């Protein structure tokens, strides 16, 4: 089974990214495929310079999901409008267009949206 997520909010501001992380981790542990498209502020969850002393590191948690097999892509246009560049994001992830989002939707058996 393939599970997809649309995540529209950024790190630390909203609990959405935590919810998505806790779900995705469990789906991956079950051997399922995970696809995640980060839209609007969601792209900031990939910022590799995130430093979070004494707190969970959300970019690190995204990186953990990638290592465990999740495919995570950020919306390139959203990133451009927010001043985030390809060089600023964690390894194993990319900025991409709606065509990738569209492919994820085709691949997924279940799809969840997290917004405002």
């Amino acid at each position, binding site marked *: 089974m393939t599970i997809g997520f649309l995540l529209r909010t950024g790190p630390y501001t909203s609990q959405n990214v935590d919810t998505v992380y806790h779900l995705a981790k469990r789906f991956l542990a079950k051997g399922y495929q995970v696809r995640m498209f980060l839209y609007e502020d969601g792209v900031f969850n990939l910022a590799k310079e995130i430093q979070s002393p004494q707190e969970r590191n959300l970019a690190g948690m995204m990186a953990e999901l990638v290592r465990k097999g999740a495919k995570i892509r950020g919306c390139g246009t959203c990133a451009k409008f927010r001043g985030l560049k390809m060089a600023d994001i964690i390894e194993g992830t990319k900025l991409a267009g709606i065509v990738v989002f569209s492919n994820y939707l085709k691949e997924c058996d279940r*799809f969840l949206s997290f917004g405002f």
Partner: protein
Amino acid sequence: MEAKKVMILIRSAPYGMATAGEGFRALIGLASMGIQTHVVLADDGVLVAHKGQAPEALGMHKLEDAYSQLADFGARLYVHLPSLTKRGLLKDDCISVEFISDEKLRELIFEVDHVITFN
């Protein structure tokens, strides 16, 4: 990979949040990629279909015009009538759309593979 049908559910008013505008950008992309797309405006999302929008003084683009083009992309546009009525608006206040009840919205949900919410 079989073709999928999706519903884009827009639940926020235009301009206060970028939601309705960003939702439009996503749905145009999906429709262009050959995904069969229903667009439903519900809750404050019905304001997207409200005629007479003039956001120029805010330096923003008119979403009324954007959503009016949806048919050109093969996407169907629906307005959840109870949401519209609750907000004191009439069908005549809206651009050309199809108005739907709870029952019809539920049927549309059952027709699609995924519901993508912009709230």
